[in-house]
């Protein structure tokens, strides 16, 4: 059953078309990696999933609910979809623990104690129990991104979106974040990840989507994608990122 379904999605910025008739789906428990050159529309596509970006044509359906429909309670829907950003986007004026409890308390209506307990568990899980009372600016990039993942998980999401979660990190910190993501995938979390980490894709992805100039050029099972991508553009792209 589809967790995320996109049907003929098109979006324009003025007269510039960022997304061209994009259709795909992510089934429950599936991990789908989205890759493609910079500027191809990956971030825009993933932001359309939880309506952080509006789109003019097509439809996005999450767990049976149409994201773009006028009556949709977007905050409630978004609360069930975790999102992790390239630049972490932790709230700098809140402690790590407060970053983890804000949504639980204000959106889910949990009590402070319950939210804290959940926060402690998740920090433990990403190996940052000791940092609970620090502030984001006092953590390394890798640590911040792990906190960001814990913050998203604190809301008990039904699926997770990642937008290049490791591309702003120093190389030595990439693995600590990927390890958390791999673990999450292996536990059966539904994930849509914009990422160029092909090692990660090989390890846990079910499918790989390749985008170019606003189009989904390739949407293939991992084995097919790495075995022999059908389109020339995908072949070129792969040879570029795999050979350095």
């Amino acid at each position, binding site marked *: 059953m589809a967790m995320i379904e996109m049907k003929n999605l098109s979006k324009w910025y003025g007269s510039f078309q960022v997304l061209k008739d994009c259709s795909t789906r992510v089934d429950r428990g599936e991990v789908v990696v989205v890759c493609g050159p910079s500027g191809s529309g990956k971030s825009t596509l993933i932001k359309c999933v939880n309506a952080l970006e509006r789109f003019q044509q097509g439809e996005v359906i999450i767990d049976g609910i149409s994201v773009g429909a006028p009556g949709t309670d977007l905050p409630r829907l*978004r609360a069930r979809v975790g999102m992790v950003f390239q630049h972490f986007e932790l709230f700098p*004026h809140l402690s790590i623990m407060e970053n983890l409890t804000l949504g639980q308390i204000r959106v889910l209506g949990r009590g402070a104690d319950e939210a804290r307990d959940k926060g402690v568990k998740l920090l433990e899980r990403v190996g940052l129990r000791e940092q609970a009372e620090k*502030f984001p600016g006092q953590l390394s990039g890798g640590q911040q991104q792990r906190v960001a993942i814990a913050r998203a998980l604190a809301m008990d999401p039904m699926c997770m979106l990642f937008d290049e979660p490791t591309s702003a990190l120093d190389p030595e910190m990439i693995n600590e974040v990927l390890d958390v993501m791999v673990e999450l995938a292996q536990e059966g979390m539904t994930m849509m990840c914009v990422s160029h980490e092909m090692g990660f894709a090989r390890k846990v992805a079910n499918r790989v989507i390749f985008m170019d100039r606003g189009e989904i050029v390739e949407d293939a099972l991992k084995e097919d994608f790495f075995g022999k991508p059908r389109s020339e553009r995908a072949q070129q792209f792969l040879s570029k990122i795999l050979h350095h």
Partner: protein
Amino acid sequence: MNFRWEWEVFLRDTGGGETYLHWMFSAWGWTLSVAACAWIIAILFGAVIGTLRTVPSLLLARLANAWVELFRNIPLLVQIFIWYHVIPSLYKPLQEVPSFILVVFALGFFTSARVAEQVRAGIQSLPDGQRYAGLAMGLTLPQTYRFVLLPMAFRIIVPPLTSESMNIIKNSSVAFAVSISELTLFALQAQEETSRGIEVYLAVTGLYMLTAFAVNRLMAFVEQRVRVPGTLGAAR
């Protein structure tokens, strides 16, 4: 010519059963009251109007822009007279309102336009990702402002708000134009009555400077207190 200081002038009776010193301090009290009340209005309205200038609704943003343009582009003294003379003659019930209140609103709204400008700039200086992150966790747009954007925006704009706070003390002197017995009006009247303009103006200048200094220190304290750990210049 031989100048002789005559500070005893402050111990003279004003003719109303109090000394000039007494009068001066009560005038200082009016200055502080006008400034403090106007400051509260300026911060409240400035926060709201500045926020509205950054929301996705075109209508709200336009209204907020109009507010800023209106109150920023008319000279303060003219605004005071409009509040005091023009509006009450158009709307009679306002004639009953004490001039203190009118001045507080005039000065408050004038300053709110400037504060709104700072708040807008503060919000817009934050990365777009902060707004996305707030919304993505399910906060509503107002909640995203309340818990994510405004707390950081206000921290960023403490320095310009310090100078607005000092300006509001200085600008409160226009209240003399509608006969509020604040420091500037005291200075004008006392020097006339006593012919000791030098002592009177020096004392009043001293009080204005003392006030500005105190505001400056207070804001520096606030800046220190709200500083985010792990950012540039933070204590830890």
